[in-house]
């Protein structure tokens, strides 16, 4: 038994938020992408409710274009921790004619996820969706609340947000509204990596340097496979790469890297001169790309 427990303030805050979600909402769900941020959330949720089980299910909106390593990892984690996992597929939304597949050079299913997510929220009557978004990721997210109220259409009204004072969270909502909850709002990318290293949390292999078939476009490194549109002139090469964020293969660029251990990754992040979302192809569409997507209910 150790003597005096001194908290890590960011971890303590996140646990506080997760307990507020469990206490204030009837049907919360944790949005799980298989990326490092949602994996960190799972660990924090374990800590928040131990020795009880995590009192909410995980929801994965599967675009069908995920890295296979991520899906394998997801299934393994769920099995180990005895968690409840719900999967909803973007392919189903396409088949039902609710959304149309993008075509051409920059085609991605990233924006199509929103419809599938909103349908799942309606199907399960979720009133709170816990997500791993961080304010340091992107400038529109810098203004996001910890409890962010969305209307029936999942829309974010950035000019009419509830002020959040001290650590008092107001999750009161009307029928039809739901709240997006962001327990690691105040973490930086480096905080997440240092935490993963200290806690020795398992993460998908694509976060570490590996050999991969890639091609170069617009100064970014794209995965070469059947889901990613490629011109004949764009030549495939094998490179040592890793991923800093894990989204769809169609919207996540790799970085050249030799980092094969968590120590290497942390060292690399410290020295990095490119921001994490700098490798997100979806954000490069315009200066306000993220804000526009958030307004229509994107996570």
């Amino acid at each position, binding site marked *: 038994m150790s*003597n*005096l427990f001194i908290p*890590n303030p960011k971890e303590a805050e996140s646990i506080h938020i997760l307990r507020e979600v469990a206490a204030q909402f009837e049907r919360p769900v944790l949005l799980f992408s298989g990326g490092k941020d949602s994996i960190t959330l799972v660990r924090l949720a374990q*800590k928040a409710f131990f020795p009880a089980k995590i009192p909410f299910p995980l929801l994965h909106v599967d675009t069908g274009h995920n890295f296979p390593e991520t899906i394998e990892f997801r299934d393994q984690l769920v099995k180990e921790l005895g968690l409840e996992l719900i999967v909803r597929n973007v392919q189903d939304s396409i088949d039902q004619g609710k959304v149309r597949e993008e075509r051409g050079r920059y085609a991605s299913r990233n924006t199509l996820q929103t419809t599938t997510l909103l349908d799942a929220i309606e199907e399960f009557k979720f009133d709170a969706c816990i997500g791993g978004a961080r*304010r340091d990721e992107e400038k529109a997210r810098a203004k996001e609340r910890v409890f962010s109220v969305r209307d029936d259409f999942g829309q974010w009204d950035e000019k009419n*947000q509830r002020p959040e004072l001290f650590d008092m969270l*107001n999750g009161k909502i009307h029928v039809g509204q739901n709240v997006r909850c962001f327990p690691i709002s105040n973490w930086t990318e480096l905080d997440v990596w240092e935490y993963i290293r200290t806690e020795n949390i398992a993460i998908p292999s694509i976060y570490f340097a590996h050999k991969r078939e890639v091609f170069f476009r617009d100064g970014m490194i794209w995965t070469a496979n059947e889901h990613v549109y490629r011109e004949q002139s764009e030549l495939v090469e094998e490179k040592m790469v890793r991923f800093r964020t894990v989204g769809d293969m169609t919207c996540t660029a790799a970085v050249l890297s030799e980092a094969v251990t968590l120590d290497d990754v942390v060292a690399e992040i410290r020295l990095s001169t*490119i921001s994490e979302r700098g490798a997100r192809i979806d954000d490069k569409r315009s200066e306000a790309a993220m804000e526009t997507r958030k307004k229509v209910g994107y996570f």
Partner: protein
Amino acid sequence: MDIQGRKLIKIATAGSVDDGKSTLIGRLLYDTNSLTTDKIEAIERSSKQRGYDYLDFSLATDGLVAEREQGITIDVAHIYFNTDKTNFIVADTPGHVEYTRNMVTGASTSNVAIILIDARKGVIEQTYRHFFISNLLRISHVVVAINKMDLVGYSEDVYLKIKHDFDALVAKSNFKEEQITFIPVSALKGENVTRKSDHMPWYVGNTLLDHLEVLEPADLLESSVPRFPVQYVIRPKTEAYHDFRGFSGMLYGGSLKVGDAVTVLPSGNESTIKSIHFFDQEVQEAATESSIVITLATEVDCSRGDMIVKSDQLPKSEKSISATICQVNNKALKVGGKYILQHGINRVLAKVDQIESRIHTDFTGTEEADQLKLNDIGRVHFRLSKPIHFDSYHTSKSNGAFILIDEGSYDTVSVGFIE
């Protein structure tokens, strides 16, 4: 301390339009290598598009489209950076008259306030307001950054005049423990922000960053009396933990240890702490701001919203309270109005009995008022449906503040500070 042993300093910034607040933050980010190449490139592109011949760092922080178009900041943005020794979180709050609520919001989670003053304009009405709010929220460390020194010829006289005017304000404050530091800077040129200026040899103090790094994050006034509001009762009902009944929550103030004699409020039932858990470890004692799970030696009634305190250090329990209110919503607070009062995590119903006064935020006293509108600050008396268990905000920020939630819209409409 974070897991790497870095301390966490939370800063609220306040300034009027065009004081260069965003530029100052952009400069801090740039000089601490916190801006990545792609962000700097984006700033260069945008600066060029707008026809500037310098890098407009405000573009790094003004996040929303409306703000970039109007060139102003309209909501609190959170910005993160770190040095080897310290993690910083900056709540960048807008300086418009109509956005007092944003500074109150940003300041509520901060332990340092940076108040910007344009050296050409000196102490203006907005400065009064910003200092008033940092006082109201009992921010222990105030940094007065006198910016645009390059535009007044780096004049020591200008600096001294502003310091003199500000000291006159400080004399009117009733919060004597706060530490106030004046730093002359040029955010645009990067002088005295992270690097000493060659143009102001008369200034012998620290640069802004050096000053922020030597501050202690602990709130000077946070009391050492522990308060443990129960957030969520943990009952695993598994074989290994069949009879486990743990009370989870965040501990505020001081520490709690196994064996402490405690009282559960509101029931008043007494017990002792049997065990303290953090995840799978059992600990003997937990320090302030730990998110822990506590078990008690006896079966007592205890659920969400209750508070566990040391039996010899009970808070006040009352059904009728007076508080200083800041209105943070368009809907005015009126006599007879009913609200949900959220004190920490506990909710009761509250009715406005009387509005005692509206307080002038320029330190010129109070006036009578029959309502408090958005951005108004006033003294209000409430009657509550049940007693709350509180301390004075002056000795315990966590147990002396509350929010009011509108019963119709469920919006957060006010924040209150109990004296």
